[in-house]
């Protein structure tokens, strides 16, 4: 079935289909049941699947993750929601020391098919701790898959794929894009953990790599440049750890230039890893230094000025022009 759905609704549909298909799938989180989640991503699910499978939990993130570990050991597939990005740190111990390691520690005899859904990133005018981009913290931990979605199709396919996976997945949902509409083909559930080439041309003179909330920004950037006669390749990483960089290497070998954009601060961000690997793999193809367009290395600012903080089309174009002018 192909449909036009907002990204948040595509997630809702993915969760619904997962609950329908596998009765080991259980949802837990604060306010996800009766309220349907503060972003309504779980809207209607408790009504249809009952309060045991779609649980409104007490207010304790560490316990939400910690009990998911036990449920997973008992054969369940917990899909848990952390209400906002900033609150996941309360559960950091459970994620880093337990969720990520049990498979390794038990020589594979224990699996952790847990999905930790986190609405993340800025742009919605929120108060402190509601606009964080914590991906690097998790991408740094061996044993965790870290996934984002930037389109409705990916929201649907990747949440299905994440729930079906026997590895733990930190699933980052770009909250400011929940209302972004897009085509969804529900037969596409078998995606691999690959990055996705959104735009590519033999004429391209630069490669723009991004993920999550900046995917629509990157597409817009490419369209603006194309209108002025400049072609660029655009790649959505989708999976932030482990990274699938083959398509990036391939693109950079033809374009010779790389710009990486993300909302998170630049310092030790995803862009640093991408830049290092591209430098290792494509050294002789590079025509210019690899540039990053990121959030600044300051805590997320008050919301009135968050748009001065967030990377936008202008800043990305500026970086591409600097790379081209090098």
């Amino acid at each position: 079935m192909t449909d036009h759905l907002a990204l948040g609704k595509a997630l809702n549909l993915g969760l619904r289909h997962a609950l329908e298909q596998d009765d080991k799938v259980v949802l837990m989180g604060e306010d996800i049941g009766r309220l349907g989640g503060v972003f309504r991503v779980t809207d209607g699910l408790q009504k249809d699947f009952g309060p045991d499978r779609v649980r409104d939990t007490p207010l304790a993130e560490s316990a939400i993750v910690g009990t998911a570990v036990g449920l997973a050991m008992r054969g369940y597939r917990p899909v848990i929601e952390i209400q906002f990005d900033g609150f996941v740190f309360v559960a950091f111990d459970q994620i880093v020391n337990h969720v990520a390691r049990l498979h390794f520690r038990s020589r594979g005899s224990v699996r952790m098919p847990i999905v930790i859904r986190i609405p993340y990133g800025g742009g919605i005018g929120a108060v402190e701790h509601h606009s964080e981009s914590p991906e690097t913290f998790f991408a740094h931990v061996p044993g965790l898959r870290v996934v984002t979605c930037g389109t409705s199709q990916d929201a649907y396919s990747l949440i299905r794929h994440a729930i079906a996976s026997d590895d733990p997945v930190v699933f980052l949902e770009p909250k400011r894009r929940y209302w972004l509409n897009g085509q969804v083909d529900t037969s596409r559930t078998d995606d691999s953990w690959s990055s996705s080439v959104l735009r590519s041309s033999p004429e391209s003179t630069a490669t723009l790599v991004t993920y999550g909330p900046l995917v629509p920004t990157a597409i817009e950037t490419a369209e603006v440049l194309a209108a002025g006669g400049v072609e660029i390749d655009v790649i959505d990483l989708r999976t932030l750890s482990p990274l699938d960089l083959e398509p990036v290497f391939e693109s950079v070998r033809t374009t010779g230039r790389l710009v990486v954009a993300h909302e998170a601060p630049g310092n030790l961000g995803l862009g640093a890893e991408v830049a290092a690997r591209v430098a290792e793999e494509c050294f002789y193809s590079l025509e210019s230094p690899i540039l990053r367009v990121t959030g600044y290395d300051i805590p997320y600012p008050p919301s009135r000025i968050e748009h001065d903080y967030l990377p936008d089309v202008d800043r990305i174009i500026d970086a591409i022009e600097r790379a081209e002018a090098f």
Partner: protein
Amino acid sequence: MGIEPAHEQAEPLCMLTPAGERTGPPAVHIGDETQSLRDFYRDMTLIRRIDTEAFALQRHGELGLWAPLRGQEAAQIGAGCALASQDWVFPSYREHGIAWTRGIGPELLLGMFRGTEMSGWDPNEFRYAYGQIIIGAQTLHAVGYALGLQLDGLVGNDDPQRDTAVLTTFGDGATSQGAVAEAMMWAASYQAPVVFFCQNNHYAISVPVERQSRSPLAHRARGFGFEGIRIDGNDVLACYEAVASALAKARAGGGPTLIEAVTYRRGPHTTSDDPSRYRESAEEEYWESRDPIERVRLRLVELGVPGEFFTEIDAEANDLGARVREACLALPEPDLGALFDQVFTEQDPHLAAQQAEYRSWHGVSGGAA
């Protein structure tokens, strides 16, 4: 003052019924009860006006968000007024009433909600820390601050002018966080001068308090080895007396107390919330009939306070409403460039370079003042 510990209490402590009848034990900490009731009435009316205005400002797009306190005026004004000036407060985000009693008016209060400020005031100036958003985290900060007071020799000297205590406030939902349990354990272990003031407003966003606890929240204290009491959180006299008594005990070196103020969040969780999705209007009407301000008005009328008193306060509230609107619109727009100076105590060269880059990109010259 004859407040029974929670496990022996049949009903939460009540000193002023919803009908405005004076009941329960005599007040010990309040001097002139009529005068205090007049003061409480004024503060509660004014803070309700701030709350109403701020809510409206959010609806007009002038605030990004507002967390209304409607229904919790007695708990907050009672607790706030019970503080001695040297005491400290470690609050959550909804305690505009306690902030008000510390001298934090709309000019400072609204910045965080308008999105012009991370916080808006200097905690040292008001002895009032930030409106904590990470649920429960402030309770640990309170206990640590209290340990510092002990180290400084400011506890148990039999000197009410100097001895100091810490009040930390949080919700019913917060009691489920590990941080809050740890704070209580720690405070008990070191007999820290902390008063844990829990406003049980029956909801954590959409989740009813029954999900957080199968027994009255105040009972938890006993397990940690200190006293817990339940009070009618819509009764400003009970709130004042209970908090004043617990603070006095803490200052004197008697250790922590947990006070559960049973109240109700009459509005939505925040302006983003829609309570019709998870609660019944009959419940809302029940709590409307237990209004914290109305019962004080009834009592004051019975005590013979003249009508002008109330009209004067209404006029003052109207002026305050105007002040809230002006204060909101007058909040200075923040400058991202200046924030680079706030990250470390000494500027770092890489960050300074980024700041310069930011400023040149935005066409602004010069550093921060």
